[in-house]
């Protein structure tokens, strides 16, 4: 079935260093939508990025990700981490353009140290 894998449960790094959170997915559909949601403590998840187009970089608030269908990946990156980036990050998949379903990965907790 459809699934999303985030290999790191916790990523800890120092402010100013680059961020990379891994996300891979599985689906039988050829046109999935991929999303990154960010959830701060005691808040609901908020959309950070989304993409449908293969090999096209999408950016928002300093974060960027590129959907690579060849490797079924949608890694989240940022060139320089900020303290305020500390949060839970969820990669999510909507398998098909006609699909209403969104499947979430287990989430990666990003902890940025001063």
């Amino acid at each position: 079935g459809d699934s999303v894998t985030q290999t790191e449960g916790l990523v800890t790094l120092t402010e100013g260093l680059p961020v990379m959170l891994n996300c891979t997915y599985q689906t039988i559909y050829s046109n999935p939508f991929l999303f990154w949601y960010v959830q701060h403590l005691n808040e609901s998840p908020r959309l950070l990025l989304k993409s449908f187009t293969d090999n096209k970089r999408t950016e928002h608030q300093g974060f960027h990700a590129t959907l690579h269908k060849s490797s079924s990946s949608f890694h989240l990156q940022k060139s320089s981490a900020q303290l305020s980036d500390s949060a839970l990050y969820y990669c999510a998949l909507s398998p098909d353009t006609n699909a209403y379903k969104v499947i979430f990965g287990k989430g990666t907790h990003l902890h940025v140290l001063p």
Partner: protein
Amino acid sequence: GALVYQYPRRTICKSGTSMRMECQAVGFQATSVAWYRQSPQKTFELIALSTVNSAIKYEQNFTQEKFPISHPNLSFSSMTVLNAYLEDRGLYLCGARPGQGGDTQYFGPGTRLLVL
């Protein structure tokens, strides 16, 4: 803008009792509404997906008998947790989408359920 409200924000119920929670979409028509549960230290589990003009689809391990859902119009949905027990505690999120795949799913703030 598009907003999703959920009520109540927090609730406590006694083991074996039931709890109803509501979800309201404002600023857009919620063609689909998904209910999720985020149990402590876990990700979002999809409970069920309610889409206009389609039957409500429950995921494995979740049933209509335990989590009955109502989606009477394009702005409102409710879900009840029947006979709540300790394992039902967590944050229940409502995610509403205006259209099909690729459209942003807007989340409400959640209803946090504590079961005593």
